[in-house]
């Protein structure tokens, strides 16, 4: 078979946009639910705390991969299937599974931020911004498990392409290339998180240093 690298890269990046969309939607879900949960936890009502702790225990402890499969089965009911396409239902399952992870992470971050605000540590409190970006990169990279339930994203596209290669070495090299892309992407994101954290710390230092 003929393999055009430029075509592959262009298609791969188009599919990678799906991963970004899934990441954005999951983070949005995590923010919408995680921040209010943290605010409720901050009220220190014992019943509320107990109820929210159960939710957080589930979201933290449950493997995203299993949750994704469970959600896919939960969403595969006639009422939903009549309204939405199969691809949407599958994307919905991965978005919700990742949103559960994001929810727990954002709730923890918001609680830390609230504590630091109380202590008047503004710089540390503002570190929530790069940390939310860190959660975003984690959900974005984790969205690749969507390939297991047939979501058309970058990894499932790669698999579709490598399955057409008769030579196993070619398959290996293609997947290695894509893995290196993901590794570089996440490394760059981690550096950005560090740089952003440094900028925030410096800004607040400068502010405090001003007379």
């Amino acid at each position: 078979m003929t393999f055009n690298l430029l075509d592959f890269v262009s298609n791969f990046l188009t599919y990678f946009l799906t991963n970004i969309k899934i990441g954005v939607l999951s983070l949005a879900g995590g923010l919408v639910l995680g921040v209010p949960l943290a605010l409720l936890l901050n009220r220190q009502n014992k019943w509320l705390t107990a109820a929210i702790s159960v939710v957080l225990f589930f979201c933290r402890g449950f493997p995203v991969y299993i949750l994704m499969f469970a959600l896919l089965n939960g969403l595969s009911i006639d009422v939903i299937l009549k309204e939405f396409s199969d691809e949407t239902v599958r994307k919905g399952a991965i978005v919700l599974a990742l949103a559960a992870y994001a929810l727990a992470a954002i709730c923890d971050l918001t609680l830390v931020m609230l504590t630091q605000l109380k202590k008047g540590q503004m710089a540390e409190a503002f570190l929530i911004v790069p940390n939310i970006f860190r959660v975003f990169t984690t959900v974005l990279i984790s969205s690749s498990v969507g390939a297991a339930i047939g979501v058309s994203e970058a990894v499932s596209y790669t698999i579709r392409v490598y399955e057409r290669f008769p030579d196993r070495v070619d398959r290996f090299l293609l997947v290695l290339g894509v893995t290196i892309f993901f590794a570089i992407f996440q490394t760059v994101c981690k550096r950005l998180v560090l740089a952003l954290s440094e900028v925030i710390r410096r800004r607040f230092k400068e502010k405090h240093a001003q007379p």
Partner: protein
Amino acid sequence: MARLSTLSFLFWLLSVSLLTNVHAQVQGGLAHEQLELAEKGHCSKQKGLTPLKEILCTGEIKIGVKGDYRQFGELQDGVFTGYEVDLARKLAERLGVQVKFVQVSGADRIRRLLTGEIDMILATMGHTSDRDEIIHFVRPQYYAAPTTIVGAKEKIVRSWDDLAGSVICVPAANFSNIEFAKRKGQRIMIYSDPTRLTQALLLGACSLIAHDQTFIRAYLTGLMAPPERLLRYDEKVSFFEIPWGIGVTKQAEASLGRWLDLTLADMHQSGLLIKLASAHGVSNEFLVKQQKLWTQEPCRSSTTFDKECLVPSGDTFDPPSAMSAGFEALDKLFLRHSIKPIKFPMFTGQNAFQWFLQGLQVTLLLVVGSLLATFALGVGLFKLQQAKWSLIRLTTNLLLVFLQNSPVILLLILGYLGVSLFLAYTIPISIISAVIVIGLNNGANVAGAMREVWLTAGQQLSVGATMQQATVPIRAALINAAKATPVAGFIGVSDLLATLNDITAFTGEQLTTFLVLTVIYLFLIEMVVIGVTKTSNLFSAKSVKS
């Protein structure tokens, strides 16, 4: 009066055929009995009518057919067409009643029959031994087809061995999916209906799909399929040929069921079924064999249908496990309180329970193996980072960045491809490679955390002391390793998720499958958290003492 005239005509018609055919003779006898009943005007007065009498009295038969199955049952612009639809019309015609078509799916057809929404199922339903337990199948059956795996022509699959590690998309609640649970090594992805399944293949979400050969040929590889699909796809492997039967309730077995048995035998004998199938381009090898069978002795003149005249049902029966009685009692309890019965197929069938236990064993093996590998490889990588030679240090650091930042799913695929370059990919090999990959992915975090501690402490600490100070990130890496183990199913490891997914594929029971999975995984991860925390606390306490 109009109905009485219709019934009289029907009786006359059947009496004529009585002279020609022994099956029609008995069939006519049955109809005569119904006619007498109608003439006596008992339809509106009598209670406890047989299902056949009810149909004759109401003058309508409700038949469940497919609406999305080309050549067999297709709904277009409000009109049903196909071989099964024509057969349904012929049956209603012979009964002298109106036919009302109700579109059903593979997942809901039996429920709709049992709840009385329809009188019979004529909807591409395979006659299997486990379905025999719930409903009555009309014999002789009206069709037979194997399940076929289809994919793009460039994907080379000559036998089941070539399918190891492949993903096969399958329709939900299909009896033939049991074959995947038996064979293992493949990963299956379940689709709710055949249309979505075909779409998944066409859009590339699935590279292989498995369905009835008739369906595959109608949409993808047969002469009726669009030419561009014919050029693109071919049939890879066929298996599990099974007869397709008309289904009625057990209560209808002696009346409607018996009438249908005789009518189908007559239709085989007369060649009518071949005609109906040919009119829709349906292949007729099975029907030709059946016609030959029913025109020869002893089947030709048998009304009790000897064993040699009947095609046996597909053997999908899973003998009850030791626990099945307990679950049956639970079922009855639910029913008594009008709660929808919940099935636990992974516990009630012997085979399913055995597969469940195997899946659980593999999962435990994966979790324990991944924890050990994460720890051992983490410490190993940390030691390599301290190597004398700068080249080794540089290579290790690069490897760490790569391992820490790559998605585990891609690392698993790389591991699978790497291993299959040198070794035959077997189930034990898939487990070992998954353990090593998960161990490397999370061990890289262990090594990274230990190095950070070691550097902060001025490069003076021993390995033990470094581990003690890096307890928190090491614990996090170990818990993450345990949580990553289900992803191993992606490369064909038959863990609990993969096994329960296989069981769901042929039983159709989704609720309990994922309930059981959720409970087990929550328990397992919590055990890992407790175990890892206790071990690290013990380790810390010992270190403080020393």
